[in-house]
Structure formats: C-alpha cells, structure tokens
C-alpha cells in the first residue's frame, strides 16, 4: 500500500510539473498540428478514398521520435542538475517507486496527447464506415509504442545532467529501434542476410506496431513492448544507482 501511495505522490508531482510550465501546452499544440498536418495534407487523407486511420498511424512513430524525447528529457536530468535528486532519494521511498511514478506520469502525458487526436476519428467516421476494431487496436498499439519511447527517454535522462544530451541520446536510441524494422532498411539487408535482417527487425518498434495497426493485438507484440519497458526501467535503476551523485 505504502508503495502505491509513494508512486502516486511522485506521479502527481510530475504531472503537475508538466502543466505548471507552458511547455506542456506548447507540446500538445505542436503534437496535434504535426500529426494533423502529416495525416491530412502530406498523405492526402481525403483523396485516399478509404476510411481508416492508416495515414495517422503511419506517421506516429516519426512524430514520437521528435516529441517524446522532448517530454522525457527532464525526468531525471533536471533532478540531477538542480540537486533535487538528493532530496527525492533521501525520502522514505525506494528508487523503484520513484522510477515508476515518473515513468507513468510521462506515459500518461503522451497518452493524453494521443487521446486528443480524436478529431481524426470523428472525421473518419463522418466520411465513411471505418473498422472500429482496427481503430481501437491501433490506438492501444500507439499507447504501447509511446510507453516504449518514454522508457527509452527515461533511461537517457538518467544518464546525464544535461537535458540537451538526454534529448539527443533518446532520439538516436529510438531512431535505431525504428530503423531496425523500417522497410527501406530491412529491405536492403534482407538481400544478403535474410535471417539476420529478420532477427534485427524483430527488435524494432515498427515491426510490432505495424502488426497491431492491422487490427490484431497479438500477445507477442504486447509482450515485446512490456519487455522493452521493463528492460529500460531496470536499466534506469542501474544507471541511477551508479551515477546519482555524479
């Protein structure tokens, strides 16, 4: 019980700190404008003649690539820069509770942003009869994808006291996870090492996100995202334990 209370206290503070600064609102606007622009204009949503969210989900991993690291870069690096980490970790809580509280706050913040894209659903429903199952699966997949990005961002944030370095590292790590399963890249590799290409692709955010988008929530994809998040959170724990005073 105590453990959950501590998590909630950290979680609440983190969520508040997002909305206390204007950054949260700027972030939301940029996210919504960007996804809207890419979905409706760049992929010619209205001219496709199909009522589904394919164009939206297609762009999401790329939008996340830029924006999620921006939302997570301060999680630990700012604590370290300001010295508040010393305060936080001398409170009667465990490191795990602090990590979970922060992770869930950042994840919820991104999930909220995803939720605010609902006008795209309304538009699609107004124009045609989309497959509701595929839409729900797509959104659930998007939230899991966001969790994976957030966990990577949290790890890089724990590595440095500079938010800029944290942002760049998160972007590079996430880019690797994306490119490993991106068709133009896997296509080039699969010619000379098909097995290897397949193996590498199976570690990619993209491969697992694409199968969910088709409307199938496969247990394997859920397990994949859960494992990525668990791994990143454990790694954050290790990094913080070793470098918290640095």
């Amino acid at each position, binding site marked *: 019980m105590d453990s959950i209370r501590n998590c909630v206290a950290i979680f609440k503070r983190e969520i508040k700190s997002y909305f206390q*600064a204007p950054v949260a609102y700027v972030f939301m606007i940029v996210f919504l404008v960007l996804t809207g622009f890419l979905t409706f204009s760049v992929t010619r949503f209205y001219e496709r003649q199909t009522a589904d969210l394919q164009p939206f989900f297609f762009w999401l991993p790329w939008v996340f690539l830029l924006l999620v690291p921006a939302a997570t870069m301060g999680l630990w690096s700012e604590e370290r820069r300001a010295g508040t980490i010393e305060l936080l970790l*001398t409170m009667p809580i465990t490191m795990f509770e602090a990590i979970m509280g922060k992770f869930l706050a950042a994840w919820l913040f991104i999930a909220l942003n995803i939720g605010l894209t609902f006008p795209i659903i309304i538009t699609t429903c107004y124009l045609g009869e989309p497959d509701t199952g595929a839409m729900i699966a797509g959104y659930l997949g998007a939230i899991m994808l966001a969790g994976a990005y957030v966990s990577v961002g949290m790890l890089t944030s724990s590595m440095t006291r500079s938010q800029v370095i944290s942002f760049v590292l998160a972007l590079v790590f996430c880019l690797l996870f994306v490119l490993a399963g991106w068709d133009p890249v896997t296509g080039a590799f699969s010619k000379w090492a098909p097995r290897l290409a397949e193996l590498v692709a199976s570690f990619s955010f993209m491969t697992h996100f694409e199968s969910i988008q088709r409307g199938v929530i496969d247990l394997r994809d859920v397990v994949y995202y859960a494992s990525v998040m668990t791994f990143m959170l454990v790694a954050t724990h290790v990094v913080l334990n070793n470098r918290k005073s640095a």
Partner: protein
Amino acid sequence: MLEVKNLCKNFGDIRAVRGVSFEVKKGEVLGFLGPNGAGKTTTMRMITGFLPPTAGTATVCGYDITTNPVEAKKQVGYLPENAPAYDSMTVTDFLAFIADIRGFRGQEKNNALESVIQKCRLDKVRHQPFGTLSKGYRQRTCFAQAIIHNPAVLIMDEPTDGLDPNQKHVVRQMIKDMAPEKVIIVSTHILEEVDAVCTRAIIISNGIIVANGTPAELKAKSNTGRLDDMFRMLTLDKEEKANG
C-alpha cells in the same frame, strides 16, 4: 540514537571517506567541521541513505541504513547543501508534496503544512514559485521540508551558508530550540557556529576524524585556546602530508 560505524566511501581510486565512526545521542548538536573536500558531505549523504557506503554502516534509531533504508529514512530530516527544491513549484505545493511522501494524509497533512509554514515564517511567500525566492527563503523552505515530519534525527549540510547575519541568527535559534528532543548534525566550515550552537564537534580531514570533543575541549588542545588555530593545526598538517 545515531551510530556511525566505520563508514568508507571510494569514488574510483579516490578514497573520500576512510573509516568514520561516531555516535550522537538525543539532545546533542554535533558540529561536523572540516575543510572543503574533507568528506563532510559524502559522510552525510551516506548517513541519509543517498549514497551507498563502500564499507561500514550507520544505524538511525535502531534501523540500519544499508539493510532497512526506508525505515531509517523515515527517522531522518535532511537539508542538503545549497537547499535544492523544484523551481517551478510554489512553496505550499512543494511542502505538500513532501508531506505526501512522508505519509501525511487529509487534515493531518494540512496541520503539518500550516505548522511548518508558521515555524519557518514562510507565510509571505507561500504562493510564490521556489525559483523566484531569495537565498534566505530558499534555505528556509528546504529547512521546512526537513522538519515537516518532526524527525528524530536532523542532518543539515551547511545550513547557514550564504545567509545574512540576521538569517544566520534565526537558523541558529531554530536549531537550539529543537535541540533538546532531537539528534542534530550540522556541517559547517564557519567556526563561530560551533560556539554558537554545537554541544560537540568533530573535525574531519581527508576522510578521517582528527578530533572529537566539546568546543571547550577542542580549544584547550591548541596553544592559543582558539578554535580556528586548533582547526588549522589539525587540518593543514594533514593536507600537507597528503599532498606529498
């Protein structure tokens, strides 16, 4: 109440703290003295559970900081060096967060909050973000954070650093007021402070305790009967030896 046993801390090849042991009883105010880089902050960070010791341990009210950190931390109030807090939070929000994490709920939380705000005279700035406060108010806010749960052990790293003489006086007065029912450790390199508030002092140099006694005992050890001569004698000697 607080027992420190053979604490050691290495950072790579650097041996920052090498075998520090002492005991502090209820009602004592222990001054923790030493030149910059002597290992004061590192020792305090180990006692408060922020840094894991390389060897040795500390026991707070019977709870071992290495094997039962959460219980031990509940007994401790800690004011870190430079009084850190979240810049974007207001004083009230920040203290409410600390109260939350310290396990206060409902009315109990409000009471704890109000009483600490009165005690530390933060009423005027309670709705101001921490980042906009002056050094004195920052220090007091962080001090409030350390005493909100009325801890048995209070550990303060340079609590009067950077304050003006009036503010220093206030902080010392607060320490004195709380002293009878607590264990208090204050690190400082201001020697007048030892005379002003401490019942006992430890001088640490290069990670080793070089003197431990009441201010009067320490003064008696030097030829001139002055604390700063005594301090120079003990720590300069060590530093020169360490440097070759």
